[in-house]
């Protein structure tokens, strides 16, 4: 294939955001040349599935986010396994590591996030891993394959990535200790009670959780290899391997190279456009609109990346569209415990109202501000949580039926009639549906 030197649409990043954009562009523009550049060598794969890959034999083909013919069918050129090193907005060019320049008319920075690496002694030791992409899972898999005995692992960070890698390691027979700096695990997406349920599930399979402490350095008894972790209270935890799972931060180097405005993430408006003309950003790299907070912030979750990418793509192709916004949202299923949460799960001050129900091992919590939903968490039974999420997203005042939101029998019928009618599709011949509120009555003739 001849080298790509010039395209109409150039997308950097081959994950949820990049694919969302490419699909949206093709809805509007069937022919304009699209190229996707990624430093990863694989076709788009589902990043959350790296734990399935690590946990048990799970072929890479099954991890693919789109069908194998996706790129060909959509006429998308790919430049995979090559790093992008610089953007020049004034010249509309991207420079690759090889030195090659690509000219573009519209550019999308869907560069994702990179693991946060603490500045701590021993980070370069063998046996220390990050956990963010397929190659990380492959490296850990290879490491584990060398052992014939039980492996001990320390996972630094009790967030989503930490718990996710822990589940996979446990399935591989590894003894895991999680170190979480804050008081409880998953503290950015769960409240203490839902977190405790998750912690129970982890303890049940033998995971050791240490909260309220941090690692201060990696210990090494054999030159070049990690042998454990030193904690801030002087404890030494022996380990064959250490996973750094503190979090991810937006990858901003490309944006910075082009002097594009960044804050915590790349700054975008509601059309996902950056401060630089013809350049858009989305996903974990950007800070897009959060409809709960009413302001922009990074919400690094897969569905928001896709949605933001989609809006960016539509705008790149000339179809003016506004991003409705996303918020923090997660569906977890670690160790058989299903939990969903979205928005704020820990109210920041006392202007919020919290309603909680615990029943038959199911935990439901909703958080309201001025009668509108600001967040919720459901554990043990996630059914119908979508109704709550959309009431929150649509900014509906739920004050009149707020207690019903956490009830076991909550459902569409719990909403006011106008609200559930609006949610249900209507048939082409509306006349077939009887919508009068008063049923026809026949005169009752007395006997």
């Amino acid at each position, binding site marked *: 294939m001849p080298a790509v030197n010039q395209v109409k649409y150039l997308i950097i990043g081959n994950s949820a955001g990049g694919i969302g954009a490419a699909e949206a562009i093709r809805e509007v523009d069937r022919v304009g040349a699209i190229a996707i550049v990624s430093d990863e060598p694989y076709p788009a794969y589902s990043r959350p599935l790296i734990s399935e890959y690590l946990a048990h034999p799970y072929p890479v083909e099954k991890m693919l986010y789109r069908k194998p013919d996706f790129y060909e069918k959509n006429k998308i050129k790919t430049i995979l396994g090559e790093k992008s090193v610089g953007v020049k907005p004034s010249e509309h060019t991207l420079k690759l590591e090889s030195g090659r320049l690509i000219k573009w008319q519209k550019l999308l920075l869907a560069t994702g996030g990179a693991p946060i690496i603490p500045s701590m002694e021993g980070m370069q030791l063998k046996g220390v891993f990050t956990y963010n992409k397929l190659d990380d899972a492959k490296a850990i898999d290879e490491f584990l394959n060398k052992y014939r005995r039980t492996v001990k692992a320390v996972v630094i960070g009790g967030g989503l990535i930490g718990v996710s890698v822990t589940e996979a390691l446990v399935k591989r027979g590894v003894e895991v200790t999680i170190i979480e700096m804050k008081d409880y695990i998953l503290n950015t997406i769960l409240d203490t009670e839902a977190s405790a349920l998750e912690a129970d599930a982890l303890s049940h399979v033998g995971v050791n959780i240490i909260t309220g402490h941090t690692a201060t350095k990696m210990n090494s008894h054999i030159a070049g290899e990690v042998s454990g972790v030193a904690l801030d209270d002087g404890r030494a935890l022996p380990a064959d391997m250490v996973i750094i799972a503190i979090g991810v931060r937006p990858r901003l180097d490309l944006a910075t190279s082009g002097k594009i405005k960044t804050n915590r993430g790349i700054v975008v408006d509601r059309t996902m456009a950056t401060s630089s003309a013809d350049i858009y950003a989305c996903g974990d790299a950007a800070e897009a609109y959060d409809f709960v907070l009413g302001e922009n912030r990074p919400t690094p979750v897969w569905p928001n990346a*896709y949605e933001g990418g989609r809006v960016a793509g539509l705008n790149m192709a000339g179809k003016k569209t506004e991003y409705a916004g996303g918020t923090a949202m997660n*569906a977890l299923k670690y160790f058989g415990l299903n939990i969903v949460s979205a928005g704020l799960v820990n109210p920041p001050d006392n202007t919020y109202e919290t309603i909680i129900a615990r029943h038959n091992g199911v935990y439901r919590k909703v958080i309201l501000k001025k009668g509108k939903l600001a967040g919720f968490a459901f554990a043990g039974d996630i059914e119908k949580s979508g109704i709550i999420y959309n009431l929150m997203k649509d900014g509906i005042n739920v004050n009149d039926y707020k207690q019903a939101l956490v009830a076991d029998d909550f*459902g569409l019928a719990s909403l006011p009639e106008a609200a559930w009618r609006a949610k249900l599709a209507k048939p082409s011949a509306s006349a077939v549906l009887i919508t009068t509120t008063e049923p026809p009555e026949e005169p009752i003739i007395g006997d």
Partner: protein
Amino acid sequence: MKKVFVNEQVCMGCHLCEVYCLLKHAKTKDLVKAYKKESPRALSRIRVDESGIVSLSVRCEHCADEPCVRACLTGALTRDPATSLVTVDEERCIGCGTCSLVCPLGVPKLDKSLKKMVKCDLCQDEEIPVCVANCPNEALVYMEEEADVSGVARDARR
């Protein structure tokens, strides 16, 4: 596309739609066996939501803006361009529940034994969906949807 609509005024909340949906997804074709012998019991893709005298038979509406397809982490949920049907590829579904979290009706259900999400496929091998065929009160109708007159603004809303 043809969809199932509920005639709420004549739905009595008998749950037969759920019963026949469960049977449709059971291994056996015998109602009693499906309920009493099959373990785990098959799951109905339909839910009847009730409050007071209101009862609503709720299922996937294969909606045009497909929030579930867009949110799916693995690409297991797709829309068939030919039939407009939104379906779950069980091979690729990991049962995380993200689809259910973003669904305005909250309809995708977790099959706890399979660890997969399940939802209505409008009984592709039947002339009309079994819930409609077995509704004793014609509270369920199977027909074309009202044309979407709102047009462009859908992306902005979701």
